[in-house]
Structures are given as structure tokens and as C-alpha cells.
């Protein structure tokens, strides 16, 4: 069983966290912090397995991680999982993300954590490995996104337009410009 999947950057900022066992928010943050401290002090050329996380699991649990550029992908698993298998799984996860975002980087995860969660949900379910075939995963994701697009249809067009404007590389002030009066004005209009 996989107990938790954590993605954080080189500074320990969480980018994605999934706990398959309940911990409250404070505990989750502590676990992320502890895990980061354990993982970050290791060189890149040492092995990817780590024992000794005290907050999560216990002696049966291991941290299996990979470090990609600015991100750490850490899986906390028990002895029923194959160590090398999980390493492969992390690879599959990252490659799938790469396919979904086209050259994935930290920013993609920052702004689309929900999309990353969707990828993960096709990979692992409730702590158990669901699918390891990347083509299958991509196919499932694609179909679901298609459903979402079909739903949005025309009505989403204005929202998309606004978000496109917002995403444009405008000066920050303009982007953060608040438009509270406008909707209020519209609201006040009598239809």
C-alpha cells in the first residue's frame, strides 16, 4: 500500500500532496516538512530509498523518492510494494504529467495542481496501484477532459476569455485590477 504521495520543490514548498491515510492538516504539513528535511540533505547520486521517517508509518514504511530538476516526488510505501516498482511508477507519473502538460515544469504543477491530481487518480487509487500503462492513462484522461469541454460549451466562452486576458503578460497592476463595481452595476440592472 502507498500511504502518501508528496511532491514538493527544492525549498520544501508542497506542490501536490495526497494522503491515503487520514492526517489532519497540521500533521500533513509536519510530515511534508520532515520528509523534505530527510530527502533534501541527500545527494543526487545516492540511493532513492530512505528509512526513518518518524511521523508517518513506522518501521514497515519506506520513503521512495525521485528528484527531478526542482521537484521531489516522494512516495511513502509499506513493505508490500516493490521498491523498484515504485520507482518505475514515479517515472510513469512524471512522464504522464509531461505528456499532459507538454514539457512539464514546476509552474504547471503550481497552477494546475488539480490536473495533476487527476493524473494521479488514474495511476493510484486509495493507495493501490491502478494502472501503470501510460497510454491507457492518457486515453482515460483525454476522454474525461473531453467530457468537461463538452459541458463547458458556449457558456464557458466568456470565462475563458477573461482568463485568457488575465493570463496575458500584462503588468501586474492591471491584472490584479479589481472589478467589483462592474458586476455590481450589472446586478443592479433590472432585467
Amino acid at each position, binding site marked *: *500500500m502507498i500511504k502518501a504521495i508528496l511532491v514538493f520543490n527544492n525549498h520544501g514548498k*508542497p506542490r*501536490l500532496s495526497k494522503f*491515503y491515510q*487520514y492526517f*489532519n*492538516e*497540521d500533521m500533513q*504539513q509536519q510530515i511534508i516538512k520532515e520528509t523534505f528535511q530527510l530527502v533534501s540533505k*541527500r*545527494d543526487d*547520486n*545516492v*540511493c*532513492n*530509498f*530512505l*528509512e526513518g521517517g518518524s511521523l508517518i508509518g513506522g518501521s514497515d514504511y519506506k520513503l521512495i523518492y525521485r528528484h527531478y530538476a526542482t521537484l521531489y516526488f516522494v512516495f511513502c510505501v509499506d513493505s*508490500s510494494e*516493490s*521498491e*523498484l*516498482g515504485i*520507482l*518505475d511508477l514515479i517515472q510513469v507519473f512524471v512522464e504522464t504529467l509531461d505528456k499532459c502538460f507538454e514539457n512539464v515544469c514546476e509552474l504547471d504543477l*503550481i*497552477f494546475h*495542481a*488539480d490536473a495533476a*491530481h*487527476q493524473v494521479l*487518480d488514474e495511476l493510484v*487509487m*486509495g*493507495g*493501490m*496501484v*491502478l*494502472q*501503470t*500503462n501510460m497510454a491507457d492513462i492518457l486515453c*482515460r484522461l483525454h476522454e*474525461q477532459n473531453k*467530457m*468537461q469541454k463538452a*459541458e*463547458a460549451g458556449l*457558456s464557458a466562452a*466568456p*470565462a475563458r476569455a*477573461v482568463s485568457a486576458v*488575465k*493570463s496575458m503578460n500584462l503588468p*501586474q497592476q492591471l491584472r*490584479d485590477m479589481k*472589478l467589483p463595481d462592474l*458586476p455590481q452595476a*450589472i*446586478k443592479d440592472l433590472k*432585467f
Partner: protein
Amino acid sequence: MALKKVKGNFERMFDKNLTDLVRGIRNNKDNEAKYIAQCMEEIKVELRQDNIGVKANAVAKLTYLQMLGYDISWAIFNIIEVMSSNKFTFKRIGYLAASQSFHADSELLMLTTNMIRKDLNAQNQYEAGLALSGLSCFISHDLARDLANDIMTLMSSTKPYLRMKAVLMMYKVFLRYPEALRPAFPKLKEKLEDPDPGVQSAAVNVVCELARKNPKNYLSLAPVFFKLMTTSTNNWMLIKIIKLFGALTPLEPRLGKKLIEPLTNLIHSTSAMSLLYECINTVIAVLISISSGMPGHAASVQLCVQKLRILIEDSDQNLKYLGLLAMSRILKSHPKSVQAHKDLVLACLDDKDESIRLRALGLLYGMVSKKNLMEIVKKLMVHMERAEGTLYRDELLTRMIEICAQNNYQHVVDFEWYVTVLAELTEMETSAKHGCMIAAQLTEVGARVADVREFAARECSAMCARAAAAPPGPASREVLYAAAYVLAEYCNEESVMRESITPVLVCARAHAGGGGAMRARAVCVHAALKLLAKLLLLYEQRGERNNAITVVHEAMAGFKPLLCSEDMEVQERAHNATAILTLLLRRIDPSNTMPDLAKEQLITDTLVEHDSNGLDNDTEDGIINGEIASSPFSGGLIEELASLFEGELKPVAPKAQKKVPVPDDLDLDQWLSHDRWSSESSSSEDESNALFTAPQPDARPVTHLTADELQMLREARRQEQANNPHYLKDDSPRSYQQDDVPIAEIALEVPLQVQSKRSDKYLVTKESNKKTKKEKRHSKKRKNKTQRHSTESDSEDADEAIVSRRPAVETGGELPEGAAPSDEEPQPASTDPHRALDLDLDIPLREEELLVTRVKQYPAPGGELILEKKKDKKKKSSDKNSTEKPVKKKKKTSKHTKTAELIPELKSETSDNLVVNNISNDVEGAGDVPPNATQVKNKTEKHKSKKDKDSKKKSKKDKHETKTGYEEALGISTPSKEVI
């Protein structure tokens, strides 16, 4: 309407979406908390709006904030609302939020039951899949119970995607609702041979998880798995199956024999390292289970070890790590084959990777022999000096001691060497924790190995001298505790004794450290007295009165500063010692006629001055006489003093106390001091046969015990307790030994040691019936030991005789000291859900279990009718609920009014009655009645109507059915009466 929609969308455009939130947080790095608090307020406003899109947006933002550590459990109701939306987009957001923030104990989970059921039965496979994924993260007992059937139905869905998810989901259901396992198992088994490889893999996954905790119940599946293993090419699944076999083989050796060949083939053929590694692991498990006597057995071991060597030699650190990990498994059963690769393991000790070094250290434990122990320890000592990082250093030291102490010091040939190593480790000054470990080793070696005692005493004397010279570090402070004890207990050389009394006393006062130091200080005081007594006895035997007097004076001078020590125990002991010495001095130095020696000290030492008033007349001839006559110059006092410290302290087996039989005449239920209380207190005779609750309040106030009487009572109770072996463990030594000779205190504070006299007392009884195998084994071990130590035959024999009288010697010393050995294997945590899953899956389902399977209500092809019927019933009940609502409203608290407000919204939002039904259900349930009450009521009502129908048909079974009806009323399940 359309305009309204447009308006809603238009408003939405300007809401902050998730991207804006993230961007905002990034732009407000300095006052992030403030910014997020502001966003939270906005979110709360958004959640209050009618538009589900706005809500979904808010929930999406909440999910992000949850990741950053913000509690969003307050929004659980809004999340459920978003989950219940008809749109897949919003559902996705809702379920993501739910899977991140809900948990099995979340409050409003029962609201979700029907909604999730609806999603599970949705036409679109992705909606059902979404529900399954979400549910897997927060399923509770109630949800598992209510949805088990729906999920089981999905297990036979036509879509492999759903089958796969449903199979995995079942594992979560089993964990929360173990009753579902037996009814669902046949189906699960069926899925092992599903045409879709994904489903197959999922089923294997689930069975593996189940079998890992309760392997014996799954042995019957071995043939299926064997077939899968030989036919499948999916590495993921193969790994799981092979791991499963690893868990099964210890229970069925025949299986292991069958496995060896295909596994060996796989090892030779596969190119996937992960598979290779798991194969090796399972072969190891097989080899352990069948132990020996199998042809080709040695070859398999050889193959494994060779492959592992390749892994360890690989440049990939991961393979190296795993290779070492697997090696440690082989080590347990085939230490010889691993020992051949000692070079490799030792090389790994120098690896730059800590994980690998730690693994290699773990391996060393099994690789030492008499021949290489010294060499390995030497290497570790070098590492110890070099090692940076406390974790590794700590581990090194622990391992080193473990290696040496294992199996009753099996590999240690030269104990003088070992004592030296301990001394050196002390000098490295690691930490107090390790000080304790070293201290324990010192005392244990002292107690167990008679030969090395002299040497150990000398070493300890040196240690004490060092500690006296310079303030000791944290480790030395702990070791001092043992050093002082060993020194005083085992030292017999005059010069050493003479020299170390003063340093030991200096140690007692020199360092004003923390609690650890305090502990050692009291022992030091005591050790000094012990040394002095021994030394005096020696002098007396030789008749050297002058020396005796000198040494007593010296000691008293040493004790003097301790008389006003800030540590209570030190002070008390120092006073005791001084009092004894004063007495003694009066006897052996009865005059002031030794001006040159005594006078100087008399000036400083008031106590001596005070005592010297007693006898003035003795002359030097007395001393001469004493020397000539060689009669004891102290009149036997020294002898008596020394006799206080006589007797050897023997190691006691950890389980000795437990093995002490209860004497036949001992009634444990009898009140121990009842007689005493009634006879010594002035209470009347007739009260003696009353219960002790009655006389006590009377007796207590009447008796005004004087201090002496109290003392007497206390003494009497102590006596009683001392004679009763069952008090030994619970009682702290101090409670009845306080006024005793202080020796007992040290002895009891050191683990594994108990004053021999007392332990003899109740061990004698065991002597007659003590002729067990264990003893034989033990004596064998002892014999080995005697061979190693050629000279200790006599003392060892005596030792053995005494030891063998103890009922539980077999473990005496086999466990490392301080390991707090317990003879019960650790019980699995009571919270482990797997315990409830330990069910026999082979016996056929009983009828009452079949009731659990609501699957019968949803048969795949013809189930629609019943399903609809049920829905109708639901609608009815929902109507009923809604009619009841206004009545109940009065009872609602503020929280529930909120839910009530939301209901009309939801009605407009979703055309689905079930959700409304569910929520109104909750509104009811949230009142005074327990949450399930309405559901249960509905059910019972349903049963009743059914029962009526049934009873018309067959009135015979009435009784039985009433019974089941009650059981159902408890909410266990909905029965399928059709089955009966």
C-alpha cells in the same frame, strides 16, 4: 431564465479563480497569511451564492489551500453540494476536494451515501470511476456497509475500467466493513481470471494486500496464482504474485518446493531488475521455510547470493541498497553463504550513502565469527572516529555492542579485549544514551564472566580516576555508574583498592551534572565504602592496623564534603558511611596515641575528635599486641562490615520472575495485612470477619499511632512483602530496603541482577522439577563458554549449579541487557483493521451471511424491476420525511437551520430526489434521534410489510423471521427475503 444564467456567468468571469489565487499567493510572499485570510473571506462569500459554478470555483480554491495546510473541514457541506452537481466538471472538483479533506470520521458523511450510490450507478463510466476514486479516500464503516453491494455490482460491470476500480475499492470496503469479505470473496476470486489484464492485476493486488496480513486463509488460491505466474507477462502483476508467494510459503513448505524451479527460471530469464529482485526475495523466503534436506537447495542459495553480489557490485546505488537488504534476509538462514562476501559488505561500510552504510551495518551482525570479530570491531572503531552525523555514529555504537553481545557473547574470545573496547568507546564521549548501554555491558560482563573481573576492576579504576581528574562527558557520567559498581564489587588487589578510594569519592562530589550524574554519585559513595570494607578486611587479616587507620582517616576525609551534598541520596549515604567508620575507628584506633598521623586529621575532622573522647588509655602495645597475636584488631567489626558486601550477584534470566510458581498455601485473594491491622489496631474482635471496607473507617481514626508504631507497622508490611515473591516486581526497591544495608539498592537498580539470597529463596522450590530441554541447551552453551575460559571451571560450575536451579535460565543473557525482554510476541495494534479480516474463506456462506449480500437485489440483467421498486419506496419515505419536517424544525439548532436553508436550493439545482431525500433524512437524523434511526425505521417498516406478505405464505417460519427482523433493525443490512 436565460438572462439570469448569462448574468451568473458574467459575474463569474470576475471572480477570482484558482489561477488567480495561486498567482496572488505568489505575489504576496511577504504577507501570505494575510492574503490567504482575505481569500478565505471571499471564498466564504462565494460559497453562500446560489450559482453552483461559483461554489465549485470556491471549492477548487479551498482544495488548493488545504494543500498549504489550511483546515477546510468547515466547508464539508459545500463540498458535498458541489459533488452532487450534475456536471462532470463540478463533480470532479467536488470529489477532489472530498478526497483531500474528508476522512472516515467526517461529520456529514452520511449525507453522501445516496449521492454516491447514484454516481456509482451512473451511465457514464467516468462518473462512476470518479465516485470510486473519491470514495476510496474517505470511506467509513457506514458508507462501506451501505454501498458494498453497489460496488460489488460494479465488479461485474461490462466496462473494464469500472471493474478494475471496483475491485480495488472492495479492499477498502473490507477494511471498513469486514462482514463484506466472505460474501464478496467468490467474486473477487473470479476476477483473478478476468479477461482484462488491468482487472486481473487489480484483483491480484487486493488479494495480496489481504493475504499479507492473514496468509493462511488464502492458501487455497495458490494454484490460481501459480498458473498466473507461469503464464502472465505483466511484470507488475508478477511482482505482486511473487511477493504473495513469499508470504504464503512459510505456511506451506510443499508450495515452496514447487516454486523453486519457475522462480529460478525467472531469475535466469528476466531482464527487469525489479522482478529479479522480488524473485530472489521469494526464493529466500522459500529457502527459509524448507530449511534443508532438499536437493539443489544449496545451488539455489548459491544462485541467490551470486545474483545479489552482482546487484551489490552494481554502480546503481538503488540496486546496491536492495542487494544488501536481501542479503540480510539470507543471513538469517544461511549465514555461511553470506559470510563468503564479507569483503563486499565491509566495502559498503565505506560507501558515501548513509542508507547503504546502515544496511551494511545491519548485515555485519550476522557475519561476525570468533575469528573476525576483533578485526571488524576495529574497523568500526575507525569509522566511529571519522563518522560525522550523530545518527550514523549512534547506529555504529549500537551495532558494535550488539555484535559483541549477541548470543551471550558467543563470539567474544578475549573479554579483556572487550572491556578495553568498552572503555575506549566511553572515551569517545557520544551521548548519555550510549553511556547507559556501555554501562549495562560493563556490569553484565562483570556478572557473567568471572575471569575478566580483575581486569575490569582495573579498567574501571582507571575510568574513575579519569573522571575524578577532569569533569566527565555525558557518556562517561553514565558509565561511571557501572564503573564504580564493577570496581567495588570485583576488585581484590590491594593497590588498586587503595588507590581508587579517593578518586571514587572525588567522583561523588566533583561534577555537579544533571540527573544522570546524580545517579552515579550515590553509587560512588557506596562503592567507596565497599572498597574500604574489603581493604580493611585485608589489613586485618595481615594485622596491619596502622594502614587500616590511615585508610579510614583518608576515607573519612573524603566523605566529609559529601555530608552536605545537595543530592539527598549522596548525603544520606555519606552520613551512613561516616557513622559506620566512626564506630569502626573507635574500635581500631582507641587512642590519641598516634599523634603524628591522627592528630592532623583530628583538627579538621570534628567527628573523629568527638569520638576520640571515648577511650584514652590504650597504648601502642595494643597495636603491637594485635600484630603479634594477629588476632582481629577490630574485634570482628571489620569482618562484619565486610560481610555486608559478601555474596556474588548473579545474572538472572529475564523471565525468572514469571516462572516462579505460586506456593500451594498461598491465597492471593486473601487480604495480606488484614490480621495485622485488626490485631494491632484497637478495633474490636467482631469486626475481623467483616469486609475490610467496614472496619477501616472505624479503625483508622481511633488509632493514634505513634511514630514508632507506624514504623513498626511499616516494617511488618515490608517483611510481609519481602517474603512474598509476588511483591518483588511491583515494589520499588527502596520501599522496603531503605533501612537495609545499602548494597541491595545498587543490585536492584542494575537490570538483570538481583540479590542472590532472595532469589534463591523462591528458586529452591523449582529445583526438583527442573529437568527440561532448555536447561540442557543452556548448559551446553555454558560448556562452550568454559572451554573458552579454561580457568573458570570451578566458579563456573558453581555458577551453573545456581543458575540451573532458576526456572528460566534459557534466556539468561541471551538478550542484550536493557532490552526489556518480553516473552509475548507483540500483539498487532488493536486498531489494525486486518485483524477483523481474519476470516475463513473456504467454508460455504451461511444463510445469515447471505443476507448481507444485497447483491441479490441487484442482479445484473433483471435487476431493474427491483431497483425501481426500491426507488419508489425511497420516494415514499422521502415524502414521509418531508411531511415530518415542519414538526421537527422546532428542534433544530442553528447548524441545522443552515442545512434546511440549503434544501430548496438543491431542489432547484438538482432534479434528483435522492439527494434531497438524503439531506432531509439528515436534518431529521441531526435532531435528537441518532443518525441512523430514520433509515433503520424505514427498513424495519419495509421488513414489516414484507413480513406480512411472507407470513401469509408461510406462517411456520414466523418465529425465525421475527428474529432476523430484529437483527436487521439494528441496521446491519437490508435483507433479501426473496432468497429465503
